[in-house]
């Protein structure tokens, strides 16, 4: 049920990557993790990036998340040229525009689920009361309202990842980036997490998810395949829903 890539009105591109290269090392040992990747993701899309191990998916995700800097090429996030920004601006950009979900959950140990979810708002200077309220709402959304006081060590893997999802949503970012978010989860937990992604995407948020699993990719509107640092295929599965107003 593959559909042609919709030639609908060019909504704002959340991600606009042009010919990005990323190399590690020097001379003989040099590894080209990305070899001229170009990718445009519109607002409201749900993209799955697939590919063999070592094909450069995580490297690309680090670029998209402004966690790393490309060797060459350009990247515009929500219209902003990322390469031109200093470290402090990048922090602010990540804070406001991107929600991360990692394979290893990356919650801060010793901090309760509630505090973990509040963290992005802490750096966004949100008032304490509002932080509490929004974190509670986010935990409720992922079905963990009753676990707010628990630390990561007291939660199952699936629950931890749902806390991480709540954390990624709490600052209402334009873009949700997930690197193998279900890699460590069983099928029930995977379904739970994917349901949330779907819900969030239906509400108009852009989601980019890296995965090895076909059934995870099956939830996406678009599947991008990578091989050896290059994009080898880009399929549109479902059209992008126009955000806000209903499309004509």
């Amino acid at each position, binding site marked *: 049920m593959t559909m042609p890539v919709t030639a609908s009105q060019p909504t704002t591109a959340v991600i606009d990557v042009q010919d990005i290269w990323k190399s590690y090392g020097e001379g003989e040992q040099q590894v080209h993790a990305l070899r001229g990747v170009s990718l445009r993701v519109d607002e409201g899309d749900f993209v799955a990036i697939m590919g063999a191990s070592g094909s450069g998916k995580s490297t690309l995700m*680090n670029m998209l*998340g402004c*966690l*790393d800097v490309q060797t060459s090429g350009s990247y515009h996030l929500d219209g902003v040229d990322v390469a031109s920004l200093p*470290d*402090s601006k990048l*922090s*602010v950009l*990540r*804070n*406001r525009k991107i929600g*991360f979900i*990692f394979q290893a959950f*990356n*919650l*801060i*140990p*010793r*901090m309760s689920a509630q505090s973990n979810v509040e*963290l*992005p708002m*802490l*750096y*966004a*200077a949100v008032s304490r009361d509002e932080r509490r309220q929004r974190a509670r709402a986010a935990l409720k959304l992922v079905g963990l309202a009753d676990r707010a006081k628990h630390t990561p060590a007291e939660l199952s893997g699936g629950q931890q990842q749902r806390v991480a999802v709540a*954390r990624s949503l709490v*600052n209402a970012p334009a873009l949700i980036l997930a690197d193998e978010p279900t890699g460590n989860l069983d099928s029930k937990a995977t379904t739970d997490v994917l349901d949330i992604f779907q819900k969030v995407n239906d509400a108009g948020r852009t989601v980019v998810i890296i995965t090895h699993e076909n059934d995870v990719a099956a939830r996406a509107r678009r599947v991008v395949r990578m091989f050896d640092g290059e994009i080898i295929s880009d399929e549109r599965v479902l059209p992008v829903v126009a955000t806000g107003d209903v499309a004509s």
Partner: protein
Amino acid sequence: MNLLEIIKSALRGITSNKLRSALTLLGVLIGVGSVILLTGVGNGSKQAVADSISSLGTNTLTIRSSGGSGVQVRSQSLTMDVVDKLSDSENAPNIAEVVPQLSSSETVASSITSSTATIVGTTSNYFAVTNSTVALGTKFTDYDVKRDAKVVVIGATLAETLYSTTDVVGDSITIDSVVYTIDGVLAVKDSAGTSDPNNSVIMPISRMQQSISGYGSLSTIVIQATDSDSISSAQSEATSVLMEAFKVTDSSDLGFTITSQTDLLTTLSSTTSTLTAMLAAVASISLVVGGIGVTNIMLVTVTERTREIGIRKALGATRFAILGQFLIEATVLSLLGGLLGVAVAYALSFFTIFGVQPVILLSSVFLAVGVSVGIGVFFGSYPANRAAAMRPVDALRHD
């Protein structure tokens, strides 16, 4: 992220490894505590010196013959004639009292036992000028001096040594086979360092000359100025009176010296200042060692929490926020250590240390705590900077 929240998260960091934080605190505590306590010891000994000097008397100057000391060859002999000239209020209007003193060390005996004591032969104004209070009985009078009376006033320690009690007024005491009657016992007094006033026998100077020392020159003459403002005038008056009496003109070779309490205080306090400075230097080293402990622990903390730093950066923590978090953690750690150090030093200052009752200087408290916090910031900034400068990818890869 406001300051309160940063401090809260710093405290959470500190309490997450209690033993390690406690040991670091201990390092700072010892540093700060020893700076405060040892400068307190220095200050305490300075005060003890000052107290004992003031026990020499108020507004007094001491005249000594400078025989044999240094380059001065001349040595004048202080006589009762000189005492009379100094007492003349026309020559020396700023001199209120003149106290001649003869002193020597003799064996003194009661009916029970004997001991060695300092014998001071003087006039009756000795008691008032040197702040020597008679606790029991009475002091001897001008009349006693005039008639060479065989009466004495003895120190409390000596009374205890010889009679096992201070209640000895009316008892007799034997010095050089002459028997004297004890008229009074002195109140216990701080030692001036030279000789213990509590182990002395005070008698009329005329009697001392007759029975013990002979009619040679006086040991010292103590003069008292009319008030504290006139001490230097009194000193110059005394100098000119003595120069005239001895017929000396060369002021660089007088043959006598006049020292004031202030002179003594300056000399002694410069010695104790050196002592204080040395103690402070030693203590500062432990303060620095404590500071290195803070750096060490912050380095470990930063390494241990690299992944956390990565997560925080990915979630939008700026360099400044990370820097602030670890800097405040280091500061809180050293401030806590510093405050505990103050508390411990304060508690220990109630005990005598090296025979000195420490007197804590408020300035040393502020200095030590300030320095310990400074050290926390200074030594904590290196690890904190390292944490803040880390790239999120690298920090996140860490495990």
